């Protein structure tokens, strides 16, 4: 029998704790496959965040460090500057990257640190039980805005790619989604490119992935995928915001 697919070497062979329909498992696999295909697994150091993906340090089969909430880009900076031969990525959720760690995100982009950031945007805090995130949609219910996000009380959602676009140091910014197979493939391409940029020494690369959290959204996994397509994508349009090739993107 011909083996058509197998677990990537970039993932440890163990069960993940993620909920049914959660996007983390998919993105983990995409990161692992990218490491394998680029042949960088043995020189990659990953930074796991606080939040649902805190155990990413167990799942990825490369050197890993787990850091404080939001500080991934700073930790990645420390690793990359002291060991430039390593490929360093920071894996972060929306509360981590867009709320408590916004400063580190903006400044690592401004410094154009030669690192790769995988940013999972599921519009909610997962691990702590479904509180409002900076990316929660207007009207979307969360445990700290039970009547739905009210802009008068809770302000507006933050569009991270758009926010970083004016920064000259942000070499590559792309927003993708994993709500269906087609977009999973596109996301893989983006992640691989974000790593390739680092290999080529181009500078700060970030892929924002629209992802699902059916548990905290109170939906079935299928409805969760639908929610991404119908509600999130209009607010968070997919596409390349900056790239080394694109006009306006630094190179």
């Amino acid at each position: 029998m011909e083996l058509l697919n197998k677990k990537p070497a970039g993932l440890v062979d163990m069960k993940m704790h993620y909920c049914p329909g959660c996007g983390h498992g998919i993105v983990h696999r995409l990161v692992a496959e990218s490491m394998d295909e680029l042949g960088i697994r043995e020189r990659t150091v990953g930074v796991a965040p606080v939040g649902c993906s805190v155990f990413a340090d167990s799942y990825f089969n490369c050197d890993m460090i787990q850091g404080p909430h939001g500080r991934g880009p700073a930790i990645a900076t420390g690793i990359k500057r002291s060991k430039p031969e390593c490929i360093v990525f920071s894996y972060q959720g929306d509360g981590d990257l867009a709320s408590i760690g916004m400063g580190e995100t903006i400044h690592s982009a401004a410094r154009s640190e030669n690192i790769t950031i995988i940013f999972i945007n599921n519009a909610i805090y997962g691990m702590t039980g479904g509180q409002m995130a900076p990316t929660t949609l207007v009207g979307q219910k969360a445990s700290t805005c039970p009547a739905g996000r009210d802009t008068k009380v809770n302000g507006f959602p933050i569009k991270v790619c758009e926010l970083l676009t004016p920064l000259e140091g942000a070499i590559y910014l792309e927003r993708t989604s994993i709500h269906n197979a087609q977009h999973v493939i596109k996301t893989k391409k983006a992640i691989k490119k974000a790593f390739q940029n680092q290999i080529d020494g181009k500078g700060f690369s970030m892929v924002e992935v629209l992802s699902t959290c059916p548990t905290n959204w109170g939906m079935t996994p299928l409805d969760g995928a639908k929610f991404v397509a119908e509600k999130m994508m209009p607010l968070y349009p997919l596409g390349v915001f900056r790239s080394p090739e694109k006009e306006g993107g630094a190179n």
Partner: protein
Amino acid sequence: MGEKILMKGNEAMAEGAVRAGCRFFSGYPITPQNEVPEYMSWRLPEVGGAFIQAESEVAAINMIYGAAATGIRSMTSSSSPGISLKQEGISYCAGADLPFFFANVVRGGPGLGNIAASQGDYHQSVRGGGHGDYRTIVLAPNSVDEMGNFPMKCFELAEKYRMPAMILADGILGQMMEPVEFKFETVDPKSRKEKGWELGVASGRGKRIVKSYDLRENELEKINFIRMKKYQEIEAREVLYETRNCQDADLVIVAYGTSSRIASAAMKMARDKGLKVGLFRPITLWPFPSRELAKMAEKVKNFLVVEMSMGQFVQDVRLAINGQAVVDLYARPAGIPASEEVFAEIEKVYKKIKKAGPVKKAAATPRPRSVQAPVKKSKPAAKKTATKSKTPKARPVKRSTPNVKRVKAAKKKGGRK
């Protein structure tokens, strides 16, 4: 080695760190330690290291967390409010058993305080400082020479025990100029061996994880017990201190850092007048020289603590002496005492001692000497020292002077003792 260079304390510390093999520095400007990042910004690139001016203290310490995890000798420095911001990251490094070196060039506090020298961060430094059960090794220099030589000690201790080690200095030590002689061989980072836990290029070996959490049942406690044992080992082995003129002393001043220099000058004045005064200076504030102080309290019955804080350091001295001797305090919580001031205090305490009679002889009668509290009396040790005269019966002395001396401002108002 052998060469004496005139340097500012902050610069000596930075140069000492570089010579000790430091190749990574991240920090954020704050007075009075700015010479450290300024020096590192040109010195580190010169030796092939990395310097980053971070966007905040929080980012700076997390850059250290990442750098230290790669096994490189890394350093950050700050001053009081900045160190407060770094405490979470320091706790993470302690939780992940990562060695690195940091310096707190203390200024006045709380809050924004002022930019003058102070010792107000004593508790924060020696009790861990951040969240959770942990300690940091704390070295307290009192000269520019020590500012230059202690980074090496800090790196060695940090790596030996895999934990953060710090220099607790202050604005005066950071800013003043004195000759420094680097008394150690310059370290070439390339010649240092792999440690076996650092992150980096794996090439064939298995993956490594650096983390500070353990969510498995009972596992964290096990790790904390291991860490506790390590801390006990450090307390047994790594204590550093200095004594001067203590052999025949009736009164021993206990002070560290800048206040130990002032105390030393005051001691000299006292000796010139024939008063038998000695000086005990802890160099490691954690581990604290508790046993050594307790041992000294078997002979010397009167101590005077001089500190530039509100009575933080005196607590450790009293814990160590545990009621075996009288511990007076001269505190300047946002001020720098003059040696004349301290000398006046010495004279006052000395008069009290003489008035009280031959304390030494009385104290020579058998009584508990152990560092452990004499539990049978059922009086907590702290209370004994804090109140007036409920001292053990072997001491036939009335001590009416309150232990805490008020600072000048209070004195001016009058009416208070």
